[in-house]
């Protein structure tokens, strides 16, 4: 199964786009789900991210890699409007995020997971997913308090949808557990389900495989591809596990000191001398 996946991705043809980036050939005629132009942010004079240009195709699985402290999570925080950029722009489906709040960015179709897991610990697994459905299956406060028919109908829909989403990772049986009491790997998977529940166009995964064993990582890799195929969305992931990145990502962007030093396919990145020097080279030395 996983071999099939790998071969499928390695055959994806990546083509250049005007913004000095590449996208999969199948997405070239669609509006890119994400486009950043000269994106940058300063913290007290320090440029944490500088002139960051990236285009992600409509159904691309992309990777964002780089040494520790390169600014990867900061990029996520810029894309999700946790931080307001100092320079440049973020476009989601061609719409500028300038001046929008985190909530508005979420409504435009951007969802994320967190490096340091941020679940709603005291709520159940199902309730966590239902928060993801907050803007998908709605009813007003009054219907809730008075238990109007709309409440029952929408609650049922929320429940069914939550269960359907949990089944992606086979987590239906955990629906009643308190989220904070789940094992680490399950918490990471729940974060992905919760993000998916918001019906995103672009899913940002911040180190989804952190703390997972090789078997779990393998499974996660298959699921990431499955999610993309099933939901027809784009996924951008930050990851240190190179087998996952090289195995599942079509386009890979390498960040160092807040700047993009390369974007290409897995093969191109592995062969790029600048990347090897900045990143893989160091790793080889450490291995010695």
């Amino acid at each position, binding site marked *: 199964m996983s071999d099939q996946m790998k071969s499928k991705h390695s055959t994806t043809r990546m083509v250049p786009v005007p913004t000095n980036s590449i996208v999969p050939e199948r997405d070239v005629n669609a509006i890119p789900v994400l486009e950043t132009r000269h994106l940058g942010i300063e*913290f007290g004079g320090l440029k944490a991210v500088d002139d960051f240009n990236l285009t992600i195709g409509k159904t691309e699985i992309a990777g964002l890699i780089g040494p520790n402290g390169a600014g990867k*999570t900061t990029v996520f*925080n810029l894309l999700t409007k*946790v931080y307001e950029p100092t320079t440049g722009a973020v476009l989601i489906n061609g719409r500028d995020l300038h001046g929008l709040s985190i909530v508005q960015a979420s409504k435009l179709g951007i969802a994320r997971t*967190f490096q340091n897991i941020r679940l709603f610990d005291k709520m159940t697994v199902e309730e966590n997913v239902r928060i993801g459905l907050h803007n998908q299956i709605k009813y007003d406060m009054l219907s809730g308090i008075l238990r109007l028919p709309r409440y029952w109908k929408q609650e049922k829909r929320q429940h069914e949808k939550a269960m359907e989403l949990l089944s992606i990772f086979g987590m239906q049986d955990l629906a009643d557990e308190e989220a904070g009491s789940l094992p680490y790997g399950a918490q990471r998977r729940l974060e992905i389900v919760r993000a998916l529940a918001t019906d995103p166009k672009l899913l940002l995964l911040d180190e989804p495989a952190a703390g997972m064993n090789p078997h779990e990582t393998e499974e996660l890799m298959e699921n990431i591809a499955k999610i993309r195929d099933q939901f027809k969305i784009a996924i951008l992931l930050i990851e240190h596990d190179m087998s996952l990145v090289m195995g599942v990502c079509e386009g890979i962007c390498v960040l160092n000191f807040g700047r993009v030093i390369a974007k290409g396919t897995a093969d191109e990145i592995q062969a790029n001398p600048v990347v090897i020097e900045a990143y893989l080279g160091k790793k080889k030395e450490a291995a010695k």
Partner: protein
Amino acid sequence: MIFLDNLINGLSLGSIYAIIALGYTMVYGIAKMLNFAHGDVIMVGAYIAFCGLQYWGLPPVMAILVAMAVCTVLGVTIEGLAYRPLRQAASLAVLITAIGMSYLLQNLALMIWGANPKSFPRTFINSSILRVGELSISSATIITILANIVIMVALTLFTSKTKMGKAMRCVSEDRGAAELMGINVNRTISLTFAIGSALAAIAGVLLCSSYPILQPTTGSMPGIKAFTAAVFGGIGSIPGAMLGGVLLGVIEIFGKAYISTELGDAIVFAVLIVVLLVKPAGLLGKPVREKV
């Protein structure tokens, strides 16, 4: 002339707020908690000094020193018993505990000293009146303002020059990193409470020298206003506490004089709300960025 009179009274009241605000601001900066009981430590300090002067026949300076010593021990004890077990807990839990502690102190004082207000005795602090032209200034006013300046300078020197002071600043910046650098965080927090509580004793004596009515609730309103002052100036900042305290004192006195006596407190709190709306980090505070 009335204007000048009010201004001087405002500066004096503001100086008391500033000294109390220091206790809040230091504890908030280092332990990241609102020590609700701080105002009541002031009250305890004032009562101890009162007992020293009235019952034990101590000279004023000795009475103040005893009050400072008792408050220091009290502050460190409160921190160790009630706050330390909650170092990792949510801020809501710590805040409720601090409110409980404030209530405990008030009710203990009620049991020990009774509900009847005590009249604070005259000392060298408030015994004479200085006349400059038509102005008459109480010695308490001058001593309060001077004490505020001395304390501010001493604290600034302490935090910037001494090893313990630098440790305090480290813990306030990043507790985890400070711990890794070998700084004893618990001891540093205890020290902060000790300094804050000793200052509270001084503030208590100064407060009761200017407004000589002492009862178990004496500390709570000045305490809350001083916290307002600390927020006004920018919580965590020592010069901010001074600036905020003095400004708030002046605003309160002028509000009472020119708007309405009954609405004095309301005006002070309205200032708090406006400040939080317009500049939540306070006048001299730095906005904090949450780590994601």
